[in-house]
């Protein structure tokens, strides 16, 4: 069974997006669930949006649509996640919208390194939380 977890950074980002005025990003969690629901672990691992891999891990910058605003994958959200190669574990590291008041244009290599370092710390301290994909 595939387990989905989230870092404190990811949870904070989701919280901030849901608090943006007029509920602009209110459906962000629904978009995440829709993007993963029914997928096999192989489908989650094999993605053309892969930005990094080694013997143990794959990091993917997933392009997600924003159906509420009729935005395609190209213009919707970006979800950064790490998936293990040997176990059925997926960990959400970061998410941001490509458009709207909280628009972020890109993420650079230094930010990604920081996200992986945070994950290592939080995993060891047991700070990761479960993210339900139903």
């Amino acid at each position, binding site marked *: 069974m595939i387990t989905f977890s989230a870092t404190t950074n990811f949870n904070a980002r989701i919280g901030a997006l849901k608090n943006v005025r007029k509920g602009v990003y209110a459906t962000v969690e629904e978009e995440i669930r829709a993007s993963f629901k029914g997928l096999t672990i192989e489908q989650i691992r094999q993605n053309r949006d892969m930005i990094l891999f080694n013997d143990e891990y794959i990091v993917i910058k997933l392009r997600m649509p924003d159906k509420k605003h009729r935005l395609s994958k190209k213009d919707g959200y970006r979800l950064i996640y790490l998936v293990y190669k040997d176990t059925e574990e997926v960990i959400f590291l970061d998410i941001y919208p490509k458009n709207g008041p909280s628009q972020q*244009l890109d993420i650079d*290599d230094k930010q*990604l390194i920081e996200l992986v370092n945070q994950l290592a710390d939080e995993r060891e301290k047991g700070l990761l939380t479960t993210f339900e994909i139903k």
Partner: protein
Amino acid sequence: MCETAVISNRVVRLSRRSYNHRLVMAAPNSYQASQLARLNRELDSLYELIYDEWTTISEEDYRVFGGQLVILIQTIKQLYDTCKKQPRQLGLQEETRKLGMNYSALYELNSDIVNFRIKMPKSEAMIQALHKLSEADARIEKTA
């Protein structure tokens, strides 16, 4: 090796076209939304071409078209800023919004190539971060 020459030619062609649009904007009354719509379709198509190739783009490939792509992105941004200042009566709002999204998409694609295709494979800091995660996983497995 990706389709470097094809990408390069299309980037240069679209840079010229985007720049020409800026010049025409100097006399905006003769400018029509359909012209901007056509440019947006071509930018969309360029995005798809580069996105299809992005996982195979090497540092050598990027050396060929990277500089041209950066100029195109800057030109689109300037055109976008000019379009935003035009009076509403010209009816350019929707195509201007799409141009802004095309700018954002190409900016991201360029940034991904630089950060994740060129810089990341050589990054000692990333190797260390993944090693740190691997060690944490090993310790967790031991105590489980």
